[in-house]
């Protein structure tokens, strides 16, 4: 049979101490049920269950590494089940790297519990004291007599056994890790990835499935006044045109017929006039700014400015940018009586289950959501309304329905990284010591926490007031790698460079002069060393820039070298240091750092979403440039965290300092200060 390790979803996560900017990203469920986290089958293989999804962050291998080490089995003996609401423990969603670290911790405890249970079972079978036994390579063996031992497979062959996750199981300390902390180049899903076997939501196909194309409005806020579907209905392959509560969709036997049908549906659109356009944004952000939220208040700001030899005021502006994951959203829905199954590449399978249940007045247990592989999410694939549409249409036509976004639809009907305007006023002495720091950040969008992330200053200004406002958002805005942290960091770290320039100090030295938190000092020094920092002017025609930051409890710094030729900035190389505490899966963390740096280069240099009167002007790759291989620098990453500091995230921090590093390097190369992104629009 098998051994199952069960527990609830909020057992004893250790508090993450970051020293600075301590934040919690909780994983608490209203449900206090027990879930199976881990099983050991009678083939000796372990299976772990987690509500997280795989969207490229390598969580499948990351979690398996933790279980393999604690359970003392080879990595290849661990199977991983993710993101399937009928099979895995409840989870709030895959975002905020912290919650992922906590699930990893829970699984380590589950695996350590399983190991202890197997040792106890072996003690009975072998008739030896448990103290004489240890687990090794899928077996329990006697320490005193190596010839005596028993395989896990054999131990669990009897009745099914269930154990509760122990409160404090003997979790393996880092000094004894043999799988964790090691380089695992070959991912568990590596072969599936390179053979096309990995299935994404775009790839799900069912028997009898219809292809649907939703007729989308040409502008935000537009409503259909009248619809004529006669021409579409007459097309070969079209099965029906559904019109229901504002949803207009063409259903067909193949994808091309559905797409063609949607193009020939005649709609008279009522487009609201007078919507803001992209050039209205800076003013709109400030004028609509509401709910100023103090992120950091300390000392006496007026007194601070009175002590200052210099006062510097600057304004920074970042436009909306598009997450543009390579896989546009797709969803497939199938009904069996009153039971609904939905495949959707969402970062929140349980959230989607709840939404669908309430949409159709069902119990959550009647809804099954499966998140297959996700072709990139970066935070944007938390909302997944496309799956609602698929479920509604499938209900109407009585057959399974697939909807997939085109690239343009994915861009327009996803959510953008919020636009922001940030004003910073600093006071400092002539040797560059900060004595006052005032910042007002206006972030677009309803979700205020987005703009708040990373708005504290790590520098010892003594007299600080940092406010974050919520401003109107003409475009749908939402999560994007690191939320507002990359945005807030851009302003602050360019400003620090301006102070260095004003007092004639080296940018590294100036920062160290104002930093007492040792973890910040260390990442800065280590990034500078990895890069070979030698001032902002490394060689003729080149500029170097540096910046630091913190996100999800991880400390990070990046130094970059650029050259500028004919309105093109080339980033040649990046030296980075990351302190994310213990590194459980170094190759995965390195891959994430590299990726977030490349992503950040796009936002720094050329990405901006343009819109006018409610219409998006650059929804396709023909008009929206993202980094390509020819834009990618050489990236060297150094991990500098302490072994005994709990793991924090590695997927987001890399993007946090990179835009400021680049802007600072461009200043060094050209003498032009870029306080507005993307830089190449203003060269």
């Amino acid at each position, binding site marked *: 049979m098998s051994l199952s390790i069960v527990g609830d979803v909020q057992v004893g996560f250790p508090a993450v101490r970051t020293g600075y900017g301590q934040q919690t990203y909780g994983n608490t469920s209203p449900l206090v049920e027990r879930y199976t986290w881990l099983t050991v089958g009678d083939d000796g293989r372990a299976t772990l269950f987690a509500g997280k999804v*795989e*969207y*490229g962050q*390598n969580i499948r291998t990351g979690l398996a590494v933790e279980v393999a080490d604690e359970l003392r089995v080879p990595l290849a003996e661990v199977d991983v089940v993710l993101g399937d609401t009928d099979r895995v423990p409840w989870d709030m969603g895959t975002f905020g790297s912290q919650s992922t670290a906590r699930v990893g911790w829970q699984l380590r405890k589950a695996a350590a519990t399983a190991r202890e249970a197997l040792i106890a079972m072996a003690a009975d079978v072998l008739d030896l004291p448990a103290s004489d036994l240890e687990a090794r390579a899928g077996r329990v063996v006697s320490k005193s007599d190596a010839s005596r031992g028993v395989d896990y497979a054999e131990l669990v062959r009897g009745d099914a056994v269930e154990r509760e996750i122990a409160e404090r199981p003997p979790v393996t300390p880092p000094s004894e890790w043999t799988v964790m902390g*090691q*380089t695992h*180049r*070959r*991912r568990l*899903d*590596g*072969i*599936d*990835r*390179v*053979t*096309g*076997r*990995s*299935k*994404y939501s*775009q*790839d799900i*196909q069912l028997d009898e499935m219809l*292809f649907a194309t939703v007729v989308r409005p040409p502008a935000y806020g537009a409503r259909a006044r009248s619809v004529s579907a006669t021409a579409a209905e007459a097309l070969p392959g079209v099965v029906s045109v559904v019109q229901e509560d504002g949803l207009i969709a063409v259903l067909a036997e*193949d*994808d*091309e017929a559905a797409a063609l049908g949607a193009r020939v549906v005649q709609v008279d659109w009522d487009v609201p006039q007078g919507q803001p356009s992209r050039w209205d944004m800076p003013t709109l952000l400030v004028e609509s700014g509401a709910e100023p939220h103090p992120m950091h208040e300390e000392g006496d700001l007026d007194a601070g400015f009175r002590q200052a030899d210099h006062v510097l005021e600057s304004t920074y502006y970042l436009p909306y940018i598009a997450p*543009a*994951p*390579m*896989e*546009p959203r797709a969803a497939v829905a199938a009904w069996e009586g009153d039971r609904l199954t939905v495949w959707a590449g969402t970062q929140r399978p349980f959230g989607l289950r709840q939404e669908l249940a309430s949409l159709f007045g069902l119990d959550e247990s009647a809804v099954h959501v499966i998140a297959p*592989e996700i*072709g*990139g*999410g*970066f935070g944007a694939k938390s909302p997944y309304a496309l799956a609602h549409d698929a479920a509604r249409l499938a209900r109407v036509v009585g057959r399974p329905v697939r909807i*997939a976004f085109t*690239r343009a639809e994915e861009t327009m009907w996803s959510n953008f990284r919020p636009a922001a305007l940030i004003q910073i006023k600093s006071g400092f002495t002539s040797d560059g010591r900060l004595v006052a720091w005032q910042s007002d950040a206006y972030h677009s969008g309803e979700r205020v926490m987005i703009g708040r992330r990373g708005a504290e200053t790590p520098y010892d200004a003594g007299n600080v007031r940092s406010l974050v406002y919520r401003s109107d958002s003409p475009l749908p805005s939402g999560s994007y790698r690191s939320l507002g942290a990359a945005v807030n960091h851009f302003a602050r770290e360019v400003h620090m460079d301006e102070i260095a320039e004003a007092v004639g100090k080296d940018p590294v030295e100036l920062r160290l002069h104002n930093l007492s938190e040792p973890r910040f000092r260390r990442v800065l020094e280590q990034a500078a060393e990895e890069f070979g920092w030698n001032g902002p002017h490394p060689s003729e025609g080149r500029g170097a820039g540096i910046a630091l930051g913190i996100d999800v409890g991880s400390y990070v710094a990046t130094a970059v070298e650029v050259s500028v030729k004919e309105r093109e900035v080339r980033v040649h190389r990046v030296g980075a240091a990351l302190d994310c505490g213990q590194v459980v899966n170094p*190759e995965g963390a390195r*891959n*994430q750092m*590299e*990726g*977030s*740096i*490349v*992503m950040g280069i796009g936002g720094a240099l050329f990405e901006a979403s343009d819109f006018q009167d409610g219409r998006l002007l650059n929804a*396709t*790759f*023909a008009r929206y440039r*993202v*980094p*390509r*291989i*020819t834009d*990618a620098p*050489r*990236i060297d990453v150094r991990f500098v965290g302490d072994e005994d500091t709990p793991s924090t995230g590695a997927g987001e921090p890399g993007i946090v300092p990179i835009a400021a590093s680049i802007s600072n390097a461009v200043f060094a190369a050209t003498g032009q200060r870029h306080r507005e992104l993307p830089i190449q629009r203003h060269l």
Partner: protein
Amino acid sequence: MLTVNVNGEERDAPRGDRNLLSFLRFDLGLTGAKYGCGEGLCGACTVLVDGQPLRSCMTTVGAVAGGDVTTIEGLAAGATFEDLHPVQQAFVDEQAMQCGYCIPGFIMGTVGLLNREAAPSSGQVREALAEHMCRCGTYQRIERAVERAAGLMRGDAGAAGGAS
């Protein structure tokens, strides 16, 4: 009936103007080639026709009838690591992947490049793969994978080892 050779098998096509990517994915169930943009700009849909890369989203079944189409599913000899094409092995060993959505396209583009040029320079690699996008930003690893694959295919001993 129009037929087209896909991965060594003659397959029936519904009509000549059927989009090649749709035909592969939905009519044949070969979902390894991906939709990323539908306008020839991202490379996710790349397949080989007579050994050379083609954006399947931009063409029709009729246009490739008579040629040999190879998709990512047709590249490996079997299911184990040892059975993989050297380019696939190299992508695994350099961990040249995150979400993996772009990877079949990059692999087919790389196979096409190495068919033309056994020892491409770094400039040639970048030029050949500049038409592909990886939003996860694994480019540095992809470049290393191409280099490793070229070595494997030339039979360089050094290219084989190294990964755990």
